[in-house]
């Protein structure tokens, strides 16, 4: 069969082209590993990172105990004890820690006294037996020191959290004080724990289509499909390169001399590079699953729907191959084809969210990303890997990829035909 023979011929040509082989199989591996390692920290910054905060407890009383207790339960912050506030300040300045919470001596006492004074004043205002006391109390400064490089949202949430804990403690103490002052001279009623925080609970979770929870876009989860996309589109380099070489070396003339129809020639080439793309895909996924954990990164999660993943991979492979064929057919010299081709792939990958996820890009680029076939593929893989999307969800993107493939192939055939006869 002519298509199969061409496929085998393409295989031989590529196998004897070390540069092409390296571009197809080594470069993507290097890229995905390096990028996943480099972007590991920034991705942690976006989300799952555990913030280490220095804690200087000069108070050593109930308020500081409460703060410690609250952060101990937090999944996002871990406190590191430090005795000396000056040392703490230095370490934050040095960038060892992103923040330090400094609770000065007698903070609990001051808060307690202030609370008592407040209640007493209120009682006196209502004519209840109490001694109004308006002596000004000394204030205390609870300090949170931040590394200037800390992200604004961390700063806010950390100080918000501390303020919230103080407010809670104060509320509890107000109630305590009320109970004890109202009960003055009477047998003490049982102390109650009002558990205020249990009335309105705020719970957070990721909005996701189904029950599958807890998977976040981490470095591996972003970079593996992203650079797979890049690698697949980059096959235009050997593909278009070979195409033009065949034209220049005359073997394409031989094929034109042999028969009327160029269909088997193009179809064989297309099928071969389509299979190359799928091989790249499998290889990159394998790296995500087996190599990434070994490098101390997380393991690539696939979601689980193998069929949908296969369909998407095929759609991307078609689009990438179609694009490569078009570049090879359209440009007259290898120089033009390869420089235009690789620059265009880099641009399509940048706006397609390969280098950084689309959602952290400026608005204008986000709207541009809709035009990059790589973003269609990437979106589909994120849908499948992170959200176990159904075929219905990925279908629009898959169809766009297939349509892209058909349009590029059709254009290639038309252009190739128009140049066959001069």
């Amino acid at each position: 069969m002519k298509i199969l023979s061409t496929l085998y011929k393409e295989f031989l040509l590529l196998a004897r082209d070390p540069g092409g082989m390296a571009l197809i199989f080594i470069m993507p591996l290097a890229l995905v590993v390096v990028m996943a390692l480099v972007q590991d920290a920034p991705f942690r910054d976006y989300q799952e990172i555990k913030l280490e905060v220095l804690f200087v407890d000069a108070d050593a009383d109930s308020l500081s105990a409460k703060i410690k207790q609250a952060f101990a339960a937090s999944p996002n912050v871990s406190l590191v004890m430090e005795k000396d506030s000056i040392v703490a300040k230095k370490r934050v300045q040095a960038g060892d820690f992103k923040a330090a919470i400094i609770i000065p001596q007698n903070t609990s006492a001051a808060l307690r006294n202030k609370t008592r004074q407040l209640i007493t004043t209120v009682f006196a205002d209502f004519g209840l037996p109490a001694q109004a006391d308006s002596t000004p109390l000394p204030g205390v400064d609870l300090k949170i020191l931040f590394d200037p490089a800390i992200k604004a949202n961390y700063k806010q949430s950390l100080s918000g959290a501390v303020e919230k804990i103080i407010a809670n403690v104060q509320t509890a103490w107000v109630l305590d004080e009320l109970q004890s002052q109202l009960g003055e001279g009477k047998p003490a009623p049982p102390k109650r724990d009002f558990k205020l925080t249990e009335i309105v609970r705020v719970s957070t979770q990721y909005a996701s289509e189904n029950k599958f929870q807890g998977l976040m876009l981490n470095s591996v989860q972003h970079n593996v499909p992203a650079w797979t996309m890049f690698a697949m589109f980059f096959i235009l380099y050997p593909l278009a390169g070979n195409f033009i070489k065949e034209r220049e070396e005359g073997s394409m003339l031989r094929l034109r001399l042999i028969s009327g129809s160029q269909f088997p020639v193009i179809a064989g080439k297309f099928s071969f590079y389509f299979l190359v793309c799928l091989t790249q895909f499998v290889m990159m996924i394998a790296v995500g699953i087996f190599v990434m954990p070994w490098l101390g990164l997380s393991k690539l999660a696939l979601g689980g729907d193998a069929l949908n993943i296969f369909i998407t991979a095929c759609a991307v492979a078609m689009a990438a191959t179609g694009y490569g064929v078009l570049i090879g057919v359209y440009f007259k010299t290898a120089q033009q084809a390869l420089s235009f081709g690789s620059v265009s792939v880099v641009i399509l990958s940048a706006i397609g969210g390969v280098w950084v996820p689309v959602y952290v890009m400026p608005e204008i680029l986000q709207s541009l990303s809709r035009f990059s076939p790589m973003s269609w593929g990437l979106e589909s893989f994120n849908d499948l890997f992170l959200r176990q999307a159904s075929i219905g969800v990925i279908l629009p993107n898959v169809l766009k990829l297939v349509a892209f493939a058909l349009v590029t192939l059709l254009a290639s055939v038309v252009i190739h035909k128009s140049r066959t006869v001069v």
Partner: protein
Amino acid sequence: MSIVVRLDHLTKQYLKAPRPAVSNMSFEIPEGAVFGLLGPNGAGKSTTVMMLCGLMRPDSGTVSVLGLDMQEHGAEVRKKIGVAPQEIALFPTLTAHENLVYFGRMYGLKKDEIKRQIEKYLSVFNLREKAHKQVGTFSGGMKKRLNLIAALLHQPRLVILDEPTAGVDVQSRNMILDFLTDLKAEGTSIIYSSHVLEEAERICTHLGIIDEGTVLQTGTRGHVMAQHPDCQNLEQLFLKLTGKNIRD
């Protein structure tokens, strides 16, 4: 005797070229002939060959090969003719054998036929030992011979060879000419473009002498020579017709 090729007022001018590469060219080639398409460099031989095999469209005029118009039936005709273009048309990183197998496949030949043909021609052209070496490592003569084999695999009725001996050593050239003599004896028609006149004298039955895209003289070799009784040989006649100016 039937006509295998008929050119009728063929004209072709390349884009941006100051004058046509082929201008109002007409001639006929009878079946079984070895037709020498002779002319100095730039005379229009390769352009004529490309139009003969339908890969270039004439601006005006018609080409008919094996009785079929190339404009309409190009693909069909190409299955029956074998063309060895002037430039090597092979995959340099495939071996000689791999090149030929692939081309045989693309001709639509059966596996055992491909095998038989390849064995035969590799021996004929003394390429057997190099069969499994990559073509890129071949000498010019070896490439030319292989290029020729690629045109013969499907046993065409008409073989068109564009300067098959250019850049080839004496042994290779001799081998090719001997082979063409045998091929003619089997009844295959041959179009042989060249500017080497001793070769033409050795194998051609018919001549077409062209220059600047036009036919200067055509007919059987005897007929052409008879037109110029003052010329002792083909070279004198050629110089008389095309002038002594050096061509690029």
